[in-house]
């Protein structure tokens, strides 16, 4: 019976039939003790250890075993010493530290090996003795272990080889290409497969496609007409350049990057705290793309912007942007209720994950607990990187509150930010100090009041005593004698009593005065606290960022990912399988982040440029040349056009890592401009359109659907809002905030809606907006009824339909209903209706206009007859629910 154990390492041994091998029997065991005492370890190994290994372990833990359980190979000295996926099992001479012995003993917390039956005590003792004697192994290593072999094969994986320039392929149809490189690579593959590309898309289709792809908005009828009627040969080129120059380009492409870096404005996880100061990063990304910042600089800034030296003549804004860029190392999902090493190490894990998936398409964080199962990423690589990130302090803000243990300082930004921040902090300090004085003053009042009470009592007593003496004296005077039992006169005379009373009165007065004085002071302090709170100086804006810790250090490997169980110290470094010839190694006096940034943003890094051009390609074709855009490892898919990928990567670097130039080149290629028409022959051979014989129809993203709806209704606000609605909410637990405050109505572009983890806007949630806790280069597409319900019934769509209807009715471009039907369709779908569509639409409009409507909503902004507005909003509602509204498809002329 097979049993796969919890961790690779523990799956040491496996017995098929427990009886196959007879364990050391009695006489041998006795002999063993004698031998062990005098013999050297080698004899012990050969006599006692090796037979057990061969008979009990090799079945699962040798090069030839069917599955090498836990990556552990016990059939060679090298494999024996190296241990399994989670590292060495023993250290020669140190039997007390041995994981191996714990497992042989079936101790708690490890998986007992062999799993079926424990070895005899004598055999275990032999293992212990053998380790103590230095664990000598007389076998010879016969070539690399299976794991070493696998690793060296993995190192030969295409993605780790530098892209090399290749000759453009020869094609039969030499007239087809527009971009000689891109198009001929595409065509060559098609010709090879015996396929021919379909015809070019018509202009209506093309203009809509390129508007959505480049700026995420539909073209207006005027914009469509301008392009369609432009007969100059470079009409499309001009349009593309115009769109690349538009500020909406950065909003569209910035959002793509925000997916990849799992941008969000709260911490997520089980206690979800707001991150009110994440938004400057959002703006940084948008601005960087609009400015076409070289992509290598863009990456360098995001990993180590705080460490890059300022250059002469740089504006404060540029320097500030660079310091905002590393926000992506700070706004990741965090378990703020956690603290200490666990907290830091989880943050480092998230940072490794985001940096390596986004820039290298490598799942490095898989190597946290053991060597990567598939890629040549040993666990030591992970901890080499962990050292870099653990030497980095993330500055995410938050305040100390329940379930938030470790607040950090944010970066003040904007003009005079530091001075404003200092003033605000000084002011807060003053408030705290004044509150402290107030508290201690209040304590003094309490004490003084107690003293006053005591003084009051003392006075009362003194008064009573005097009264008693006086009355007794009067009585004595009257009776002329002193009672024998009366002792009051013995120690206190009336004079003394009177003095005591005077003193008591004086003390009381003093006490009362003190109380009054102190109370006055309390009042004054209260006033000044109130005044201070009223007069808080304005704070600057803030951003998240990181900085190096004061004492950067290498970190120890965590055995099986358990940070309490530390192994060897791993010097900081990068991925051992990715060779970047001239990259500088880590300067141990710094975190190493700058070196990491330069290692990644390096023309010789074989992954960086490929990964990015593939992302760009993915967004323009709906599928990457490497379809697994976030995984270029062994488990990722192979590129459909490897030489094209390399050529593009080299071109990207050559052209200064310009994202805009790469987008431009691809969009101007013929491959991009094809129709979506289905060709039956091609379809039979390549139904998934891997070879790009047509343009694949694509569903628009949630943001594009919303922005297009607002464009049609005329409600879209193109101005960028200042900050984020989350900023005003302050540092809070998200679940305590009413939903309408997290997501208030907005007419801004979707990229500016707050991204609060687990509380994204309803439309986003329904239309496959990716989880902002996960790195997502490729969104899923679903078509579920809740989307249909939203488009048909929601308040938002109903409202926008009405706005659109009012806008349509106010338009002076059309004068009759047929014209209105057509204009509405041009707004929504970018084309004119067919006769049948027009007729059906007119019928619908007429029907609604004449129907007895249960509730007629008052038109909000126009004087139109509400029935007419209703009728036209029914037409817009229809348009919004069509597949054509949310898909990029071929449009009929």
């Amino acid at each position, binding site marked *: 019976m097979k049993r796969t154990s919890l961790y690779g390492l523990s799956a040491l041994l496996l017995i098929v039939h427990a009886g196959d091998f007879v364990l050391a029997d009695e006489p041998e065991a006795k002999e063993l003790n004698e031998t062990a005492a005098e013999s050297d370890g080698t004899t012990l190994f050969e006599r006692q250890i090796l037979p057990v290994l061969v008979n009990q372990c090799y079945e699962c833990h040798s090069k030839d075993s069917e599955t090498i359980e836990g990556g552990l190979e016990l059939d060679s000295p090298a494999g024996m010493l190296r241990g399994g996926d989670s590292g060495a099992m023993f250290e020669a001479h140190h039997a007390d530290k041995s994981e191996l012995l714990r497992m042989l003993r079936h101790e708690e917390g490890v998986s007992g090996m062999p799993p079926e039956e424990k070895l005899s005590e004598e055999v275990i003792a032999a293992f212990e003795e053998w380790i103590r004697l230095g664990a000598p192994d007389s076998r010879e290593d016969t070539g690399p272990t299976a794991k070493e072999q696998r690793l060296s094969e993995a190192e030969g994986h295409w993605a780790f080889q530098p892209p090399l320039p290749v000759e453009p392929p020869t094609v039969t149809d030499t007239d087809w290409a527009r971009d000689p490189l891109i198009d001929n690579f595409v065509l060559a593959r098609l010709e090879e497969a015996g396929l021919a590309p379909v015809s070019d898309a018509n202009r209506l289709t093309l203009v809509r496609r390129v508007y959505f792809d480049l700026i995420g908005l539909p073209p207006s009828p005027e914009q469509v007409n301008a392009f369609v009627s432009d007969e100059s040969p470079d009409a499309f080129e001009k349009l593309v350049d115009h769109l690349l120059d538009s500020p909406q380009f950065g909003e569209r492409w910035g959002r793509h990057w925000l997916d990849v870096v799992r941008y969000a404005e709260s911490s997520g996880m089980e206690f979800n705290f707001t991150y009110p100061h994440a938004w400057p990063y959002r703006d940084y990304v948008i601005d960087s793309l609009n400015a076409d910042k070289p992509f290598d600089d863009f990456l360098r800034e995001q990993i180590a912007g705080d460490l890059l030296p300022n250059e002469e003549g740089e504006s404060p804004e540029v320097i500030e942007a660079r310091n905002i860029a590393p926000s992506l190392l700070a706004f990741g999902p965090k378990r703020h209720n956690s603290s200490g090493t666990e907290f830091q190490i989880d943050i480092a894990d998230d940072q490794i994950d985001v940096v390596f998936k986004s820039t290298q398409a490598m799942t490095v964080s898989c190597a946290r607990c053991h060597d990567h199962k598939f890629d040549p990423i040993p666990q030591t690589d992970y901890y080499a990187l962990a050292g870099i990130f653990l030497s980095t302090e993330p500055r995410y803000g938050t305040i100390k509150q329940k379930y938030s243990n470790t607040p950090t300082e944010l970066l003040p930004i904007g003009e005079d930010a530091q001075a404003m921040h200092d003033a605000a902090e000084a002011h807060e300090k003053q408030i705290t100090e004044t509150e402290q004085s107030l508290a201690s003053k209040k304590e003094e009042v309490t004490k003084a009041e107690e003293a006053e009470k005591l003084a009051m009592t003392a006075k009362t007593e003194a008064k009573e005593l005097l009264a008693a003496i006086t009355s007794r004296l009067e009585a004595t005077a009257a009776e002329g004698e002193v009672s024998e039992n009366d002792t009051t006169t013995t120690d206190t005379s009336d004079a003394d009593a009177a003095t005591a009373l005077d003193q008591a009165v004086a003390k009381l007065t003093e006490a009362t005065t003190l109380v009054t004085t102190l109370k006055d002071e309390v009042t004054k302090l209260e006033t000044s606290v109130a005044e201070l709170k009223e007069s808080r100086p304005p704070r600057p804006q803030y951003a998240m960022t990181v900085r190096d810790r004061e004492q950067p250090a290498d970190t120890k490997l965590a055995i099986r990912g358990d940070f309490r169980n530390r192994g060897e110290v791993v010097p900081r470094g990068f991925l051992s399988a990715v060779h970047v010839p001239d990259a500088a190694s880590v300067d141990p006096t710094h975190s190493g982040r700058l070196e990491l940034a330069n290692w990644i943003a390096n023309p010789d890094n074989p992954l960086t440029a490929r990964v990015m051009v593939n992302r760009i390609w993915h967004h323009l074709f709906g599928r990457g040349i490497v379809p697994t855009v976030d995984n270029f490892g062994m488990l990722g898919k192979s590129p459909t056009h490897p030489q094209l990928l390399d050529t593009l990567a080299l071109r990207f670097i050559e052209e200064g890592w310009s994202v805009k130039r790469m987008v431009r080149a691809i969009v101007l290629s013929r491959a991009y401009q094809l129709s979506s028409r289905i060709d039956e022959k091609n379809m039979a051979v390549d139904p998934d359109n891997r070879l790009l014989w047509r343009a694949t129809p694509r569903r628009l993203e949630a943001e594009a659907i919303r922005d297009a709806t607002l464009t049609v209704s005329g409600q879209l606000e193109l101005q960028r809002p200042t900050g984020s609605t989350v900023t005003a909410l302050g540092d809070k637990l998200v679940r305590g905030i009413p939903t309408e405050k997290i997501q208030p109505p907005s007419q801004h572009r979707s990229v500016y809606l707050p991204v609060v983890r687990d509380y994204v806007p309803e439309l986003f949630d329904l239309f496959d907006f990716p989880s902002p806790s996960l790195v997502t280069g490729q969104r899923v597409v679903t078509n579920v009824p809740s989307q249909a319900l939203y488009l048909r019934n929601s308040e938002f769509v109903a409202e926008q339909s009405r706005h659109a209807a009012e806008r349509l009715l106010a338009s002076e471009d059309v004068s009759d209903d047929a014209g209105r039907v057509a204009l509405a369709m041009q707004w929504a779908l970018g084309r004119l209706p067919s006769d049948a569509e027009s007729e059906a639409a007119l019928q619908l409009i007429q029907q609604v206009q004449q129907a007895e409507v249960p509730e007629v909503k008052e038109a909000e902004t126009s004087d139109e007859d509400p029935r007419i507005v209703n009728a036209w909003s029914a037409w817009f509602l229809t348009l919004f629910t*069509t597949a054509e509204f949310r898909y990029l498809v071929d449009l009929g002329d």
Partner: protein
Amino acid sequence: MTNHSSEPTISRRGWLQAASCGLGSLTLTGLAPGGASAGLLSPQVAHYPAKAKRVIFLFMAGGPSQFESFDHKPALKAGGGKEGLKKGKLLAPLTEFAQHGESGMWVSDAFPHLAKQTDDLCLLNAVSAPSRAHPIAVPMMHTGEFQFVRPSLGSWVLYGLGTENQDLPGFFTIKPTRTFGGPANYGSAFLPSTYQATRLGWEGQPVKDATIGNLTPQHGLGADAARESLKLSQLMNKPLLNQTEEVRGVINSLELSDRMQSAVPQVLDLSTESQETLASYGIDQERTDDFGRQCLLARRLVESGVRFVEATSTGWDHHSNLDKFKDKAESIDKPIAALLADLKQRGLLDETLVLWTGEFGRTPETQVLEGKETIGRDHNAEGFTAWLAGGGVRSGLTHGMTDELGYKAVEGNVHLHDLHATMLHLLGLDHTKLTYRYGGRDFRLTNIHGEIVQEIVA
């Protein structure tokens, strides 16, 4: 770890195709990112024949005490007030136990109604979980993981089995909590979003007011106009099938939305139930009204072919107010008893797997809070009670034991991964084969754990 989205391959379904011929209808071309299909929810053939076809998960958030409910501990009663093994003194159970039914199952007097149904219960007295902290334990119970967001039990079941009523979503959660993972506890993580639960209401909101978003049109155009609009939209959609099959997903979802618009309000409308039924669930009776409605909704949903329904009762975290345990128990006792009886009477219980559990149980000791002893118990995940009923479980069985004071499981331990594995097994799904490839790895509900508890399978 590996949590980026790569192209998902549906390996269970792939496995199905490989394992049996003629299941071509399960081909899911166009499912991958860039593809979409409404066929994801079509009923699926299980890995092997099974009795249970659907699940009702009654989640007791906070961790109900086993000592006041189902784990009879005479030694604890006798030892009440003595020093415990940990920080506090032993706290004798605050309820009285008696044996019930033919099975002689021990049930406390906090559950007089449920006590009449012991012969339908399969009591698990030695359940364990990896953590006694709510933020870890709640996601663990729902998704088998806490470190990462993973698909929930219900979404795995829906992924594995599809759903029977194409007019309704296949997975509902009624009044879930917002805390301790919140939506992740009924989400689909990297599984297609089709498999996530449709939420009815939130914790704290009366279930009376709970409904699905956007069922009621806000356009004010009237039903006729809406239907005409849909017709026109579909007329425009059909020609696009010439360009992409994905449009079929759009067409289907529009159709389903139309059916849901009438089917969902119908299934949520309790007014068609008899006064007798309403009364049996404790509806319109102050203490039982809300959970009674949840239970009745659960029955109506599974009866309509919904695959997985979760109902949540909150307020079981009795650190210092265990004297209120009976009140809390009262709020669910009658409703759950009525649910079981109702399912049975309708012939549904055999095919419906009912699970009752918290995220953990409690300690035998008095909770010490700020140095003071209280009438309460702290969390305990090393041994607690859950029960199953219906589809394919051995009824009338009491399985597993904690030690005599109830600190931890000593016999018949059912780890939560085992519970998940067994539930999938009862539904005809092999937990080692129900996998989904994501980020280059095949994921499953039980990760690398889980053993089927054969003893509790009928």
